[in-house]
């Protein structure tokens, strides 16, 4: 609503032409000649009104459901606010100090980073391999796209139900297959050393199709002449892939890696649904820790503080992304 106020003040502009023109960046109309000036003023007013008018519905939602909670969260993080309503008073940075000394916070943050590292590599590499295979011009294009991309359309809960069932230690398909080829059974979701990898496998199956599509789109935009010239020079398929396709894809790869890192850092759904963070907290990501301190532990203020520590991490990665992509495009 405050945004509308600015447009209203601009509406009074016609009665104050001098003041209006004092804005240096807006000299254009007055420079072109006096006769136009009387016309251009109402036009400018109309533009201001229209501009903020068109922006108003989005702005209303934006301010109420994004900006306000973001700012209010900062305030909450400085209080002892709890769901039981106990302590509403400001306690300064005490929540942040406590969080930084909280071993559980660091452990969950470590789990999130660990997941991000070990999931990003296969999620990018397998997507690249899939796209390269399909891009060779295999028959039945729709079949490959359907198989690789379809899981991306599933809700996390569906994926978790599928994989919890396949990971079942006694009755599960995976252990049964392992036993058939003479390998030992694995306690997939119940072994602290394996559980995170089990989550990564499920995540790979679920979301690799998205990266696959981005790679495929980029590959199909590589000009055909590049390949024609190379094959005239006698370069084989492998050679063409490594000396034409891969270099041409570098900007896409950078974008996919960065988007994947940002997506992986937000890991929560699959873990919460498949292991609930266990066994022994070995898979609990930081978003789940935020959720638990807020809604199970009722400590909203403390939970908000951890949210902003997590936010700081995301901002750092995003700023990195901004500079990397800007340097590339410059």
């Amino acid at each position, binding site marked *: 609503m405050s945004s509308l106020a600015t*447009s209203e003040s*601009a509406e009074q502009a016609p009665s104050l032409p001098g003041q209006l023109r004092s804005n240096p960046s807006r000299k254009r109309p007055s420079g072109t000649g006096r006769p136009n000036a009387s016309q251009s003023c109402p036009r400018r007013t109309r533009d*201001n009104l229209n*501009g*903020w*008018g*068109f*922006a108003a*519905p*989005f702005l209303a*939602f*934006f301010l109420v*459901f*994004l900006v306000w909670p973001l700012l*209010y*969260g900062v305030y*909450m993080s400085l209080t002892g606010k709890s769901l039981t309503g106990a302590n509403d008073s400001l306690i300064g940075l005490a929540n942040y100090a406590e969080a930084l000394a909280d071993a559980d916070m660091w452990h969950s943050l470590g789990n999130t980073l660990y997941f991000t590292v070990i999931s990003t590599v296969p999620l990018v590499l397998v997507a690249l391999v*899939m796209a390269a*295979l*399909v*891009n060779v*011009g*295999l028959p039945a*294009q729709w*079949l490959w*796209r*359907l*198989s*690789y991309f379809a*899981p991306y*359309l*599933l*809700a*996390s*809960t*569906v994926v978790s*139900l*599928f*994989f919890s069932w396949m990971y079942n230690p006694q*009755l599960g*398909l995976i252990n*049964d297959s392992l036993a058939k080829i003479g390998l030992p059974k694995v306690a997939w979701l119940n072994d602290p050393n394996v559980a995170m990898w089990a989550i990564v496998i499920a995540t790979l199956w679920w979301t690799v199709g*998205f990266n696959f599509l981005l790679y495929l*789109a980029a590959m*199909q935009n590589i000009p*055909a002449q590049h390949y024609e010239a190379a094959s005239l020079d006698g370069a084989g*398929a492998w050679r063409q892939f490594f000396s034409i396709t891969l270099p041409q894809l570098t900007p896409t790869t950078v*974008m996919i890696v960065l*988007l994947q890192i*940002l997506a992986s850092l937000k890991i929560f*759904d699959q873990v919460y*649904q498949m292991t609930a963070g266990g066994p022994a907290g070995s898979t609990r990501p930081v*978003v789940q820790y*935020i*959720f638990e301190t*807020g809604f199970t532990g009722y400590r*909203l203020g403390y939970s908000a503080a951890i949210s902003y520590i*997590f*936010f700081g991490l*995301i901002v750092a990665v995003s700023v990195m992304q901004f500079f990397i992509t800007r340097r590339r495009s410059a």
Partner: protein
Amino acid sequence: MATQTLTRPALRGTSATHLRQPRKKMTAGRAAVLAVAAILAVLWLIPFAWATVTAFKSETDAAAPKVSWIPPSGFTADAFIKVFQDGNIPLWTWNSLYTSAAITAITLAISALVAYALSRIDFRGKKVLMTVIIASIIIPPPVLIIPLFYQMVALHMIDTSWAIILPQVIHPAMVFVLKKFFDQIPRELEEAAVMDGASRMRIFTQIVLPLSRPILAAVAIFVFIGAWNNFLWPFISTNDGSILTLPVGLQTIKSAYGIQYAQNMASALLAALPLILVFLFFQRQIIKGVATTGLAGT
């Protein structure tokens, strides 16, 4: 013309692929490519296949210690019948459908309006507005759950569909995608209408929007899939069984049905079915849409 501009970052049809690489004989190399692609496809389809087989088993066969693709006592639709009799899945599907549709409609309307202003109208404060919207792309939704929950409690919206819908309609990245598309529409098309004294709103609805159908569809697809599958926020903001969305409802099934594996899988498949069906019918549009909007970020 508008469709042409859209295909720039998106997928071209399969025909282009064939043009580029003239049809080759089935060499050893191509056979190997086909084999690897097929192995990956099989691996990627197995979870669907195994869930389907399990869902059509009796509970006894599903929980049998001997894993079988063909159950000893034959296939049965009992699990599906039980799930339907419970009535939750149809209800949750409806809840997901109307909340996702509302989110998509509101997102499209408010994003297209502000994107048009940013693209075409020269108003004071535009640069600031643009910067703020772009900067907000980096805000991760999990950061907002605590204050947003508190806010929803204050607004008495917890356990209503409003709590699910309203916070999900802000997609700054999509505003940017739309703005970039509007930027490419030639201004001359609008100038005649401006001369005739048409209002901005008329120009927007009668000239710009019809030309923007492909990008509007792409944004709608992206937003709808996201809303349909969103778990964290609906999970936090709703408890009441009658307004749960599918992803959240399924989470409660897991504990309710416990070790009834056939019913678990039947529920999961029923939940997956709507989007998979839509995908089968609109494969090209969906793939194009995701590829167009995908790199803009989530």
